[in-house]
């Protein structure tokens, strides 16, 4: 027995000597742009960590960033990233923690310049910052169409012809490859645009453990760990329907960490002393989050089979993930495109007991009659009663005597002036409709641009990612 232990210690030392670690810790500090600001700071300060990954890009985030970049060529990335890196720079430098994030958004180069400038101000020398480019295919759409890449909507099958002129962004989901290249060139901070969320976490595993590009089972294991990490605290007890009241200290919730081993097995955990909960149940809820066919979870790096995942609680706040099988990556990458699709606005008013719901319904009827009389044209008018049916829709049960209810009316139309006029029809209901109404104070709703989503496929070989590493 002793011999085995001695051997084990030597084996670990040997692997470390030749530069291969027997385990790496990857923490996820942001599940979306706007997530808890202190989470990444806690991850680097409250316990051991090798890699900090942060996902800033929801489906439509890129089009918002693209718009910001059009207004100002120095913008178009997750601006919060810069003050955050400023805060944690001394920690990541002194402890050699590497940061990987898609917060470069629609302008990774501008993001890099901002980070380089803050490192300069902080007097940090020799810091390598990488950017991954090549995901933005908007300038190449015509060329792709000319070469027979249809870019049809992969959800609906519709042809792109009807929206081609209104495209506002088009970004291919890149995989782990370019990030691995950046890490191998010694980058400590890797800033990407659109990269598949789970691939951000897979990259350091490939770089550290030397997994081969066709080792589908290990790549899939890394993707599963990345998927469990990618929404931040959703795997550590946040937004947990299992037994939410039993999750301790949500105020100080710890964000997830995967301790990944060279064979692809990982342990999902969080720093000691933080709040939240890691259990099979919390991990399962994240596993099923935003998936389609679980046997074919398709990423740029491989196709992971979620029906092979084995979970085991091996200690408090420790869940082992093993057994993952994978299949070869497909010949295509997903392209996330967005296009301008008119304008929308939402107005709300609050009605009080007695007969709160009846009053709100009457107000909706009056409002619709006025919109009709004005001859305004909308593609959709939607009414919900918050506190009654906004989650349940037609499944809402008639309830007795609500204390209060919020009337929420939304419209969507092609003409801005029609939507703008709708915005002016909400407040008058206060003095010209049913009584005991409030909640209109201060602001009139404003027409917003509608950015619609257009997912498509593009041949992998049509996308050429680029990596550029600079040193401060």
């Amino acid at each position: 027995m002793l011999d085995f232990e001695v051997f084990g210690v030597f084996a670990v030392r040997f692997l470390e000597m030749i530069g291969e670690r027997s385990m790496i810790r990857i923490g996820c500090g942001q599940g979306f742009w706007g997530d808890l600001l202190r989470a990444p700071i806690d991850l680097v300060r409250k316990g051991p960590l090798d890699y900090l990954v942060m996902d800033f890009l929801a489906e439509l985030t890129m089009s918002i960033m693209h718009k910001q970049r059009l207004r100002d060529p120095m913008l178009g990335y997750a601006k919060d990233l810069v003050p955050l890196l400023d805060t944690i720079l001394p920690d990541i430098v002194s402890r050699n923690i590497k940061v990987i994030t898609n917060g470069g958004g629609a302008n990774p180069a501008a993001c890099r310049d901002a980070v380089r400038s803050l490192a300069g101000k902080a007097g940090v020398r020799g810091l390598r910052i990488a950017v991954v480019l090549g995901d933005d295919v908007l300038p190449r759409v015509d060329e792709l169409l000319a070469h027979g890449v249809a870019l049809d909507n992969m959800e609906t099958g519709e042809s792109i012809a009807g929206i081609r002129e209104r495209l506002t962004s088009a970004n291919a989901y890149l995989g782990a490859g370019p990030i691995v290249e950046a890490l191998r060139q010694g980058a400590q901070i890797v800033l990407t645009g659109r990269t598949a969320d789970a691939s951000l976490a897979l990259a350091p595993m490939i770089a550290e453990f030397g997994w081969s590009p066709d080792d589908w089972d290990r790549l899939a294991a890394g993707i599963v760990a990345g998927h469990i990490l990618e929404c931040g605290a959703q795997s550590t007890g946040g937004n947990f329907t299992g037994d939410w009241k039993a999750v301790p200290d949500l105020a100080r919730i710890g964000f997830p960490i995967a301790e990944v081993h060279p064979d692809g097995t990982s342990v999902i955990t969080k720093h000691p002393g933080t709040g939240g909960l890691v259990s099979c149940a919390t991990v399962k809820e994240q596993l099923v989050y935003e998936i389609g066919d679980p046997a074919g979870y398709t990423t740029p790096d491989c196709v992971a089979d979620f029906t092979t995942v084995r979970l085991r609680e091996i200690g408090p706040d420790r869940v082992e993930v093993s057994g993952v099988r994978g299949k070869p990556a497909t010949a295509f990458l997903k392209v996330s495109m967005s296009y301008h699709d008119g304008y929308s606005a939402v107005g709300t008013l609050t009605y009080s007991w007695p007969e709160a719901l009846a009053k709100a319904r009457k107000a909706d009827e009056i409002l619709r009659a006025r919109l009709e009389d004005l001859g305004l044209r909308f593609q959709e008018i939607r009414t919900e009663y918050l506190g009654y049916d906004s989650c349940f829709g037609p499944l809402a049960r008639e309830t007795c005597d609500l204390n209060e209810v919020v009337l929420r009316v939304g419209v969507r139309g092609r003409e801005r002036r029609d939507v703008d006029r709708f915005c002016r029809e909400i407040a008058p209901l206060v003095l010209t409709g049913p009584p005991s109404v409030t909640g209109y104070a201060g602001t009139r709703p404003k027409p917003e641009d509608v950015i619609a989503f257009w997912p498509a496929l593009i041949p992998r070989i049509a996308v050429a990612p680029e990596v550029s590493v600079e040193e401060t």
Partner: protein
Amino acid sequence: MRFTAGANMKIRLLDIAHGRSGDKGNTANIGIIAREEKHYRLLVKYLTAERVQAYFEGICFGGVERFELPNIGALNFVLHDALGGGGTRSLRNDSQGKTLASVLLRMELDVPDF
């Protein structure tokens, strides 16, 4: 859980399962996870795609697909055309279908042999 007349039993899904829902464009998915292993068999048998599609009438306008994850005792439902257009096009307060799991968990299953 409560007994009704005869041997049938009504089981509220929330009492035997938990879950999470989210979006991909205009498509929602709902993962439903059995609280105990024996409950998974009930889910497989009674919580069919047809049953879920009928339940979401007026919310889901496309088809419903069901996938099984026996390894974690879970079912995944994919609801097409269920988010009023998805993204910023959707006028729904819950434009990303975040609450649809809870809506489904209120369903009652008629279970004759439990």
